[in-house]
């Protein structure tokens, strides 16, 4: 039986490809790149919010934020495990992240300047992530799809805690409402950029759709996110910072303004506000933890010898 044809039939029938199945090199490489980038995003994504754990305003809010950041670590680990089923090496993935040879989502290169950012990240950034991730629960590679199902279940808590936090602030003082609006103003456009370049410029989309790794194009998902967010913003009482944002009855969707793709590519290429800081922090954490990994290995070896 022709291996390539069998693979194509499996994918076309919407069956899942499993780790030990034959797969084209390009499929494997695309998945490793995408899953690694996704895992790195979860791990780097711990930093912007981790920044506020010690300063969250109450024990309740601290506990929530701590649980959320712990979830991000968990999501990173589910995804690294999925990447390993394709033959990727865990240590090597971390090394590539630290060396800047593999990317993570650009959104985490923006700073968290106020506590309202914790709420807005939950609402908009996690909201955009959910739009991206829900279709991935049906992606053609089994271990990736299964990891995404776990991630999506937990991500719902993230978005709701963010929205609830913002509702609380919006029912507070004038100053608190201003903080929320200011935060929305900063995060709205970067959130739209999370869906990646427009379809016409997205080099990987076509092949990924054929392989059913991706199920929707960047622009489709971006539109879905805009349509979801508008009524949520209205209920919250904030203004989305786009004068061109308007309902288009003919399309049945909201029209919205032009995204600043120059900014997007600058941040992708490393010139965002926090790129250097994020990677440096990850490098330091990895190196500072080396003695723990070594000590645990030595202890395990000693116990084995004693047994």
């Amino acid at each position, binding site marked *: 039986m022709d291996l390539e044809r069998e693979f194509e039939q499996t994918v076309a029938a919407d069956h899942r490809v499993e780790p030990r199945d034959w797969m084209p090199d390009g499929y494997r490489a695309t998945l490793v790149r995408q899953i690694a980038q996704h895992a790195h995003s979860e791990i780097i994504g711990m930093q912007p919010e981790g920044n506020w754990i010690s300063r969250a305003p109450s024990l309740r809010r601290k506990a929530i934020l701590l649980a959320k950041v712990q979830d991000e670590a968990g999501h990173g680990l589910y995804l690294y495990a999925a990447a390993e089923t394709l033959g990727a090496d865990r240590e090597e993935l971390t090394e590539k992240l630290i060396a800047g040879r593999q990317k993570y989502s650009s959104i985490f290169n923006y700073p968290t300047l106020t506590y309202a950012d914790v709420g807005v990240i939950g609402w908009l950034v996690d909201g955009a992530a959910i739009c991206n991730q829900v279709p991935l629960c049906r992606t053609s590679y089994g271990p990736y799809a299964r990891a995404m199902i776990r991630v999506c279940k937990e991500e719902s808590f993230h978005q709701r805690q963010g929205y609830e936090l913002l509702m609380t602030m919006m029912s507070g003082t004038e100053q608190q409402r201003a903080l929320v609006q200011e935060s929305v103003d900063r995060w709205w456009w970067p959130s739209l950029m999370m869906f990646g370049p427009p379809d016409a410029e997205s080099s990987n989309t076509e092949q990924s759709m054929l392989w059913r790794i991706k199920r929707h194009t960047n622009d489709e998902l971006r539109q879905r996110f805009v349509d979801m967010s508008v009524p949520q913003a209205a209920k919250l009482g904030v203004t989305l910072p786009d004068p061109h944002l308007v309902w288009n009855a003919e399309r049945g969707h909201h029209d919205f303004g032009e995204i600043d793709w120059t900014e997007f590519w600058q941040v992708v290429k490393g010139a965002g506000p926090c790129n250097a800081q994020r990677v440096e922090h990850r490098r330091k954490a990895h190196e500072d933890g080396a003695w723990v990994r070594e000590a*645990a290995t030595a202890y395990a070896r000693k116990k084995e010898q004693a047994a």
Partner: protein
Amino acid sequence: MTRSSWPLYEVFVRGKRGLNHVHVGSLHAPDDEMALRNARDLYTRRNEGVSIWVVKAEAITASSPDEKDPFFAPSGDKVYRHPTFYAIPEDVPHL
């Protein structure tokens, strides 16, 4: 800095009493005990389990997808192993 050589463990969780353990994913750990603790933190943060098994991935022997047709073929032509193979009159009760 030396590279970590922590072995890979596969993790199985029993969701609740009465169910089988089901494979949920994998993780790295220095030894069995830490694998169990890490599995708890990673895979049961929301009461997803009442029991966990961890086993070193290298200890698992698996059938190969390349030979799945010949490997599972012996059961393919034994339709008489299924209850629907047998025609029983409709009016025979409890059968």
